């Protein structure tokens, strides 16, 4: 076992900030795929996407609890917290980009990559060396070099020290094989730092934690992170619900991991207890790939030059989204009650604004509808120009 790469609290906080970025960055692609499905159709896919996206929100909040527990301050309004899609999400040796695109076989393919089960084939493969050419490609795709984990914000957060992440190895060109490996490193860091610092590691104020009353779904719930055990539990839940650690289709809680929910969509068949990953034997179902609103992949405000109404709607969405992130930030900084009082109603507003966009065609583009652009500027506010 190699030495832990996280050896200071500052490094741990950086990892956790990035963890929040990772969790958040998966939400827009899942949500838009979900909302693109025609109402009343594709119920299995709708449910799968809904479950996954809701659990990503849980993971985001657990990551915030972790960061708060070790004395950090979550900030979802930080510049570049929201990636500009397509976001380049390198994963293992095959790099791939995450697009904002309608529900489709291609979207599921990407989602499978995001949720790909996680152990690297061997210890020395836990982190991947990215060839210099790839880094160039990253820059060319509008994503600047800096974050070496799967979620690639379009620019490196100013708060992030480029050497912080790689301090353990001294190599800034490393990437984790999977989200699971990344969190595993956080777990190792937590244990290492706890040995050094003991309970001083968990210096964050208890009232900054979001407790169980703010979330529930099957499988796992939200809980406060106040000590090593709850911190490791949080890491465990995130890994388990996402991709699992090669333990098969069902996790400890008997829940199907995200990866396998997406696999079911590729098979057109549910898993049942006892199934191996490559052969579901449960109920079959059909997918209607055509029952989808064909919105423009990775739409930008500039795509709506020909329609002042679409443009206004897209700007309004971005503003609402920026407001929403500001409320989440406040909620994760000592006002968790805002999650229920403000964030939940805001999510309904965001849904309605999304539907408004993706139900309307872009003038001049045959058969292509509008979509939210998630363009949030460096000041953490909506891009209006």
């Amino acid at each position, binding site marked *: 076992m190699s030495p832990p790469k996280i050896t200071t609290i500052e490094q741990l906080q950086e990892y956790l900030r990035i963890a929040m970025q990772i969790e958040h960055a998966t939400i827009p692609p899942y949500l838009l795929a979900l909302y693109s499905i025609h109402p009343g159709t594709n119920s299995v896919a709708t449910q799968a996407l809904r479950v996954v996206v809701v659990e990503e929100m849980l993971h985001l909040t657990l990551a915030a609890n972790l960061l708060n527990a070790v004395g950090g301050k979550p900030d979802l309004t930080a510049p570049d917290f929201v990636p500009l899609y397509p976001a380049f999400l390198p994963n293992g040796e095959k790099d791939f980009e995450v697009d904002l695109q309608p529900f489709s076989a291609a979207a599921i393919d990407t989602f499978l990559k995001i949720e790909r089960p996680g152990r690297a084939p061997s210890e020395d493969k836990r982190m991947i060396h990215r060839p210099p050419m790839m880094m160039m490609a990253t820059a060319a795709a509008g994503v600047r070099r800096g974050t070496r984990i799967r979620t690639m914000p379009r620019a490196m957060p100013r708060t992030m020290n480029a050497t912080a992440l790689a301090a353990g190895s001294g190599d800034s060109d490393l990437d984790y094989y999977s989200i699971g490996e990344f969190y595993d490193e956080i777990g190792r860091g937590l244990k290492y730092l706890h040995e050094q610092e003991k309970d001083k590691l968990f210096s964050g104020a208890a009232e900054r934690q979001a407790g169980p009353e703010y979330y529930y*779904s099957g499988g796992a719930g939200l809980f406060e992170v106040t000590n090593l055990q709850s911190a490791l539990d949080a890491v465990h839940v995130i890994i388990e619900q996402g991709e699992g650690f090669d333990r098969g289709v069902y996790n400890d809680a008997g829940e199907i991991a995200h990866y396998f929910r997406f696999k079911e969509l590729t098979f057109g068949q549910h898993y049942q207890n006892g199934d191996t990953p490559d052969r579901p034997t449960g109920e079959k179902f059909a997918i209607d790939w055509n029952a989808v609103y064909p919105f423009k992949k990775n739409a930008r405000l500039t795509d709506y030059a020909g329609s002042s109404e679409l443009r206004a709607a897209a700007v309004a969405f971005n503003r609402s989204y920026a407001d929403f992130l500001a409320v989440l930030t406040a909620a994760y900084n000592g006002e968790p009650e805002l999650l229920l009082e403000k964030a939940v109603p805001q999510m309904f507003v965001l849904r309605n604004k999304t539907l408004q966009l993706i139900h309307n065609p872009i003038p001049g583009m045959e058969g292509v509808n509008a979509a939210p652009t998630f363009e949030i500027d460096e000041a953490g506010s909506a891009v209006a120009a």
Partner: protein
Amino acid sequence: MRTSTTRSLWGGGISGAIVAHELSRAGKRVLILEAGTGGDRTLSGYQEYLTRFYETAAKDNQSPYPPNANAPMPRSGEARKITPGVPETNGYLVQTGPFSSDTTYTRVLGGTTMHWEAKVLRMLPEDFELRKKFGQGEDWPLTYKDLESYYEFAEREIGVSADIDDQEYCGLKFPKGYVFPMRKLPLSYLDQQVGKGIDGTKVKLFGEEIELKVRTFPQGRNGIPNPDYVGPDGEKGFVPVGAVNTTQVELGGRCQGNNNCVPLCPVQAKYNSNKTLAKALQTGRVDLLAQSVATKVQTDANGRVTHIEYKTYRDPSSIEYTTNIARGKIYVLGANAIENPRLMLASGLPSTSGLVGRNLMDHAYMLSWALMPEVCGTMRGTNCTGGICDLRGGAFRSQQAAFSVDIHNDGWGWAKGSPYSDLDQLIDGENLFGRALRRKLADRITRQLLLAFMIEVLPNQSNRVSVDPAYKDQMGNMRPIISYNIPDYTMRGAAYARQFARLIFQRLGAADFTQYDPADYGYVTYEGQGYIIRGGNHLAGTHIMGTSRSNSVVNTDQRSWDHENLYLVGGGSLPSIATANVTLTIAALCYKSAKAMLAQLQ
């Protein structure tokens, strides 16, 4: 043909689901005969109901549930004014009157918990002793204390959201430290506005002074789990139950205030008994036979049930069916208070007390509606979050019926068909369009206040369910004939309720728009005044519980006095309905009965 299960059970509603779950958990095998098609156990089946609801113009109680000629059910819009002496046969229920009821129940898997509003009030301690305390109605052979622990089981199963603080009134008390599984759902803004106007108001009733307060109702829908909850088995905490499906799905975590709880919660945050049935089926010891209508209970010379005959139809519209027999050690009729006695009577079973089908009770609902002076956000929240419960109990019950008052968050919908009727009226009647129409519509609807008075009805032997071979459904099963009158005791309560509504509206500065049209099928006159009474879908009394075979149909375990291996469970057993929506009490009784059944099977 299926034989030799431990138990055969008719009816896949809440009673059947609880009994099936309790017995299967204890290792017993159960066969459930369900008249409906049974597709409702899957999320996609549920979604079909929702789609049907969304697509139907008339959003009534039964709109999500397709017609099924082999398991017909009463549907809204079927009730007609009854001509004396001429049975009204328009709907599934044959009605001889004089009162024409629009009461409904749902014959699908999950029963009426599919369309119910999920208000889960406990009965008051005094409701069990109406004769002793007030010289009215019947006493139960059980006390509130006897039922108290079973209420806790029922509240866990249904997943009740409520706070004790709001629920201790009119003699209701909870054991020290008891909390509901989930915290209360908050009062709507409309409730709060009403509360501002009337909290602390005192009314005088036969010399008794009663202070009013708007309080939350206990709700059978998911809210925030109470971390202090300790369940009846000593377990700590509560995990809300989400949507029912045959594959894993995480939906239904929490109420979103969609405001179409009735007839169907779009996210399954509202309890329906398929949540319980799903657990029963998971034991592997429960068989569910859908599309199977029980047609005859067969007994031997000693009154013991030997088998239940049932007909399995090919599909809802088909006239083809096969006739089969189900046998078990004990038999349970778990349908509602109309279908249970209907089957007993159609089976031609003699009854020592002669009370099968008699004492039919259903809450009498009287509506009063007004426009609030300012916008109150009507149409937000679940159908009903708060109301006035202070007149549920009191010495006045020796003179007139008690009632509970619901503040409806869905505006004048029940009385006038809002919001759709408002749109029609503003377009056709006032020629509005565009912005002016939108403004007027919003202004009008968000100020609507509807008070629904749920008035108690006492058992009365002439209010009854009977059968007659002259009236049959497609499959040849005799339809229920309902003979029903609203007793004067109830009407005295209604007359007072109308005065009470006027007082409330005055206090609120609200403009009273209530009008009772004499042409309405529910029009009832009392002491020269006219009122409209609506059915409550809270059916009870028709296999009444009592102390002996001569004064009742079932004992305190809901076991038939005349048939030792037969249980009739459900609302039919209740000797009074007082002012509590019946489901919670039905559920509590089923836990008691399941215990007795297990003892009998030992």
